[in-house]
Each structure stands twice: as structure tokens, then as C-alpha cells.
């Protein structure tokens, strides 16, 4: 029995396996790994498949077209979270160590719940946590949250930009005085996040704001919209998620509220939010940081090099270029740029999470770089720093014409000067609660 266990044939096989593993490890040594806590099944699969599809296709493009980032191939693996927080944490723990020797660059869970649950772990493990267009507003302050990046747009910037747009429509922010705005929000921490800042903005500009909660999942909104009908607001800000969005639009139509005076936030802005509402969604306005469409050069490259080569990640090719997919592409661009910038400092090799974090903190995407990336109009100008992990804070507005979104405004900037002290105060309170000593950003290079 013992003899057979160590037979020459088995030893030869083990030796071959060892050689194969060794060569695999050598290959993997020149790879940068992205752990993907994706969700492709369950109630939020439409968003997950689009976002992670776009992200993966962009990484495929970088590998196919450029041979990776400065020769370092991008690699990834997926772990299904079903948008469930516990599974998201489990996936984080499983994937954080890297893949076949390739170190993890950053995590991108696209879930507020999972992001909150892994925030402290990410900091302890020194792996950047990317919460593009969402997450904790105060994580914008990188002196307290060194590893968290609410790229492009935090929730406060989002509502500030919406109020600025409403002001534009009224003929100036001074014309907001006496106007009535209702916020219809999802009954969750995500939905409630912007209540304080809206109250501050209402006080500053003299409009009245009423916050109305829709309990999760939001399949019934008759009483909320009857209330809105009674209040007779000029505008409704829809801070929805999933099924709540089309139901809001349908119920608005049912109660006679015009769709073109409903403004959806960043998670109410996809085709999946408007299309199921049918005619009731015609005229619906929402913000976007990343318009839908396939005319951007980077999308054309993905189409040519990845999709037409039969390697596209989307199961349904008709979704190519939709809002969720393009958000995934934008997220891919920003992650890859962070790796590229970090490589310029640390060397053209696979980097640790700590090194990639430096790359994120030094993201500087101007018009020239957007031109080179083929992403003019798809991504906004972005400049991050130790103190500012958001970088952009601008949105555009789009309107649903019954079949697709049409961009109807230029970039509208949030009032970041007004928001900054509020963010710093909140971050300082978090630091005090957790015993964190904030970094001195003036001394960071």
C-alpha cells in the first residue's frame, strides 16, 4: 500500500504537476488581479450583469488591444453575491488574497450594503474599496478613509447637482424660494442618506422639501403618490432602487403627476428603471455620469476587439452600450488608470493594493487623457487627491423618450464648496468614533 503510494509513476506525475504549477506561478507573476463580487442572479441581476459585463469587457479590451497595462495582463475571477451582504463579505474574504500569485488591485462590489460591511476590512487589508457613484458620502474625505473611493459622485453631490439643475430650470437658484420639492426615497440607509443635505439646501435656497419613504421593495406606492398629489410639488426627486423606479413612474401617471417633473437619481437612471413603466415613463428625467450609447471610441474598440471576437461578457448583446454596461466600462477605465498611474511610480509590474490605492489617489483625468482613452463625453474630468476621493461631482441630465435616454444638459456641477465642511465634519465624527488618526494630507505626496 505504502509502496504503491510512492510509485515511480506517481512521483513522475507529481513532478510534472509541480513543474506546471511553477510555470503557472511564473506566468501569474505578471498579472494584476481584480476580485469581482458580482451578482448575476437574483432580483438585482439586471444591474449586476450589465455593470460587471462592461467592467470585464473593458479589461478584455486592455488585454487584447494593449497586451495588458504596460505588459501586465489583467486577470479576474467572479464570486456570486446575489447582492446579499453576507455573501459579499464571504466573497471578499475568499478573493482578497489574489489569484495564482497575482495580487488584488481593488474591490468593486457595486452594493452599498457590501461596501459598508467590507469598509473596515478593506482598510485593514490595504485593498482599495471602489464605490463608484455611491457609498458613504463622508468617505470622500481620504484623510479618514484612505482606502475608500466614492469615485465621480457621492450622494450629497448628487442631490446638490439636482437642486442646481432645478434652479437652472426656474431661472436661477434665487427663484427656488417658495417652491415645493418632494423626495421619494427608498426605505433603506441608501435612501435616507441625502435627507440632511436636502434639508440644508432647502434652508439655504428657501424652498420647502418633504421626504416621503417608500418601504422596500416599493411595489406599492399609491398612498405616497396621493400624498404627493395633495402637496402639489413643482418637482419630485426619485431616489429609488430596482422595482421601486418603474412603479413610481406608473403611479405618478396614475395620479396625474407629470413624468417630466420627476428627476431620478443615479440608481433610477437605467433603461431597466424606465422601460418597464411603458408610456408612463415618457419624459422622465434622470441624472447620469455616463450616458448610454455605443458611439464612444472606447465602446467601438470593445465592440471590434471583444464583442465581435465572440468574447463579449453580455449574454444579451442588445444590452451593449446601455447605462449599466457603460457604468461598468467607466469603472474599468478608472480602475485601469489607477493601476497605470501607480505603475509609473512603483514600476511596471503587478502591484499591491496599497500601491494601487496611491494610483487612485492620484487619478487625474483631463480632456487630453479622455481623448486618448476614447471616452470624451462618457467620463467626466476627474482629479483625486488625499483629501478628495470623489474627484468629479458633476452630472448630466437625460430624458427618456419612450425607448431610450437622450442627454438634455451639459455637465451640472454640485456645490462642492458648500458640501465639503459637512463631509469633513461627518468624517471627523467617524474618526473619533473609531479611534482613527486622520492623515495629514498636506504631507502626502
Amino acid at each position, binding site marked *: 500500500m505504502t509502496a504503491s503510494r510512492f510509485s515511480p509513476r506517481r512521483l513522475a506525475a507529481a513532478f510534472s504537476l509541480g513543474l506546471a504549477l511553477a510555470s503557472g506561478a511564473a506566468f501569474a507573476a505578471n498579472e494584476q488581479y481584480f476580485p469581482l463580487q458580482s451578482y*448575476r*442572479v*437574483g*432580483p*438585482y*441581476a*439586471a444591474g*449586476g*450583469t450589465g455593470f460587471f459585463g462592461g467592467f470585464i469587457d473593458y479589461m478584455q479590451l486592455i488585454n487584447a488591444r494593449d497586451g495588458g497595462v504596460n505588459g501586465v495582463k489583467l486577470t479576474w475571477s467572479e464570486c456570486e453575491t446575489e447582492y446579499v451582504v453576507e455573501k459579499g463579505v464571504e466573497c471578499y474574504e475568499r478573493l482578497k488574497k489574489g489569484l495564482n500569485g497575482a495580487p488584488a488591485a481593488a474591490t468593486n462590489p457595486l452594493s452599498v450594503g457590501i461596501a459598508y460591511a467590507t469598509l473596515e476590512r478593506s482598510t485593514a487589508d490595504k485593498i482599495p474599496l471602489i464605490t463608484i457613484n455611491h457609498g458613504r458620502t463622508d468617505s470622500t474625505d481620504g484623510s479618514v478613509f484612505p482606502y475608500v473611493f466614492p469615485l465621480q459622485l457621492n450622494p450629497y453631490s448628487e442631490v446638490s447637482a439636482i437642486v442646481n439643475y432645478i434652479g437652472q430650470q426656474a431661472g436661477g437658484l434665487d427663484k427656488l424660494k417658495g417652491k415645493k420639492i418632494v423626495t421619494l426615497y427608498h*426605505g433603506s440607509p441608501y435612501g435616507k442618506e441625502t435627507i440632511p443635505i436636502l434639508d440644508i439646501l432647502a434652508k439655504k435656497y428657501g424652498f420647502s422639501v418633504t*421626504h*416621503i*419613504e*417608500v*418601504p*422596500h*421593495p416599493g*411595489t*406599492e406606492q*399609491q*398612498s*405616497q403618490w*396621493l*400624498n404627493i*398629489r*395633495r402637496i402639489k410639488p413643482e418637482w419630485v426627486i426619485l431616489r429609488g432602487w*430596482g*422595482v421601486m423606479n*418603474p*412603479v413610481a413612474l*406608473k403611479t405618478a*401617471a*396614475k*395620479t*396625474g403627476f407629470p413624468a417630466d417633473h420627476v428627476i431620478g437619481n443615479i440608481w433610477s437612471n437605467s433603461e*431597466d428603471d424606465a*422601460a*418597464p*413603466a*411603458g408610456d*408612463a415613463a415618457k419624459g422622465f428625467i434622470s441624472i447620469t455620469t455616463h450616458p448610454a450609447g455605443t458611439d464612444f471610441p472606447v465602446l467601438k474598440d470593445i465592440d471590434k476587439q471583444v464583442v465581435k471576437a465572440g468574447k463579449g461578457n453580455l*449574454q*444579451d448583446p442588445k*444590452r451593449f452600450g446601455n447605462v449599466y454596461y457603460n457604468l461598468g466600462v467607466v469603472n474599468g477605465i478608472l480602475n485601469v488608470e489607477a493601476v497605470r498611474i501607480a505603475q509609473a511610480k512603483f514600476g511596471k509590474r503587478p502591484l499591491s493594493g496599497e500601491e494601487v490605492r496611491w494610483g487612485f489617489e492620484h487619478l487625474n483625468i483631463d480632456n487630453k487623457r479622455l481623448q486618448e482613452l476614447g471616452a470624451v463625453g462618457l467620463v467626466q474630468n476627474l482629479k483625486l487627491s488625499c483629501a478628495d476621493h470623489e474627484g468629479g461631482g458633476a452630472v448630466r441630465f437625460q430624458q427618456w423618450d419612450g425607448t431610450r435616454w437622450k442627454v438634455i444638459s451639459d455637465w451640472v456641477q454640485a456645490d462642492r464648496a458648500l458640501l465639503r465642511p459637512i463631509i469633513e465634519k461627518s468624517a471627523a465624527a467617524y474618526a473619533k468614533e473609531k479611534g482613527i488618526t486622520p492623515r495629514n494630507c498636506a504631507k502626502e505626496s
Partner: protein
Amino acid sequence: MDFFLEVLIGGLLAGVMYSMVAIGFVLIFKASGVFNFAQGSMVLFAALTFVSLLERGFAFWSAFAATLASMLVLAWAIERGVLRHLVNRPPITLFMATLGVSFIIEGLAQLLWGAQVHGLDLGIKDEPLELGGVLLSSFDLFAAGTAAALVLALSLLFSRTRIGLSLRAVADDPLAALAVGVRLQRIWGVVWAVAGFVSLIAGLLWGARLGVQFSLSLVVLKALPVLIIGGFSSIGGAIVGGLIVGASEKLAEVYIGPLIGDGLENWFPYVLALLFLLVRPAGLFGERAIERV
């Protein structure tokens, strides 16, 4: 007063939609004593199949017929593949089996038709309708009419047909029904098939209201307090329970919500259901269990 009436009538009409799902539960519970937790998934499966067929070029009625056929096959498979093997097992075993079936159906639906969200247009305009100063929804009125027609059809099935008679016999006393030659398994097959049909109707109405997406299976949560209040074994009870739940949750949200905080629409029906459980455990129309001790 107009506003109160709007909230009340809107709530009653929403309650009818809850009843549509609750009826599916009642049918199966009445005939086999099984609390079918998979009812919500069946609603989702029906709506998703229907809309996917429409998008693949099927005409409305062809898609309806094909979906109905698929629901019958599904019902047959559940009865044959799962429940038949669990006869005489404790109710909790049967409940857990339907819980498992629920997840399998959801996974299967996603595997077959993908994860996308679909719009479903049944051709019924949902424009505001003002009657005597009170705002009503034309779609909700249509849904209420459909529910009434469904209840009438089910009543006729139970009272005027041979199969209905057998079904009532099984519901009253399965052993006695078996003793007089009623084929229990055939009756269960029929009941599951009818529940599949009810799921299809509920799926189309809910799908047109919400869009066809995976949250559709969550409508089951709205049906539970309806069943507790109306009783698990009465179709009329499902309707009355739905009306009570719909009206009370809307009135509570509008008039109590501002006092204690918004968002009570989800849990208020359960408070009501618990009160009913304490006072009338079998619900308003449920059959009281009488046991000789």
C-alpha cells in the same frame, strides 16, 4: 373627504391585487393542506415566460396559451416530482419542500429567460380617472373586474362541476373522499393546474403593474397577511382579506405615518394579521379545526 375616499378606494383596489396571489395559496391549501410558498415564484415564472414569448414574436393569445401549457407542466412536475412523495409527512416538511421548489423555479426562470427586466403592456391604459371628484385608476378597476371574474369562474368550477364536487369532498375530508372512490392524486393535479392558471393571471396583472422582474416573487409577502386575516381555506376570505389589508395599509401610511414615521405600509398589515390571529386564529372565513380530545 375626497382625499380620504381616494386613499380608501385606492387601497381597496390594491387589496384586490393582493387577493389575486392569495387565491393561488387558498386553492392548494384547501385541497391538500399544503402551504405553497412557491406561489410567488409561480407568478414570476408565468409572467416571465409570457413576456419572453411575446418578445420572441408570439402573438398575445399564442403566448398566453403556451404559458398556460408551461404552467400546467410545472404544476404537474411539482405534484408528481415532489409532493406525491411526501404524502402523510408533517405540514412543516411539505412547507419546506415548497420553499425549496420556490428557489428552484426562480433559478430555472432565470436560466431559461435571463435576468433582464421587461416591460409588459396589456393594452390597458392607466390614466387617472376622476369620478365625482375622486381619482381612480382605470388599470386597478380592470384588475378588480378580472379578480371578480376569476372568483366567479372558480365558484362555478367548485359548485357546478364533477371535479369541483370531488375537490370539495377532498377539502372536507380526504380520507372519506378516498373511501368513496375520489382519486386524490388526480384532484391534487387539477388543483395545482388551476393554481398555475391563477398564477398566470396574477403574473400578467402584477407584471403589467411593476414590470416583469425578479421582485415579482416578493408579492407573496403581501399575500401572507391577507391569508391570515381571510383564512387559508376560503376564496371569499382571500378577497375580503385583500380588501382589509389594502385599505388599512394605505390609510395607516397616510394618516398614522406622519405621526410615527413613514414606511409602515410594509409591517402594518402584519400587525393587523397578528391581532386577527389572537382573536380569530382561523381567520374571518377559515374553517375552525375541531378535534376530539
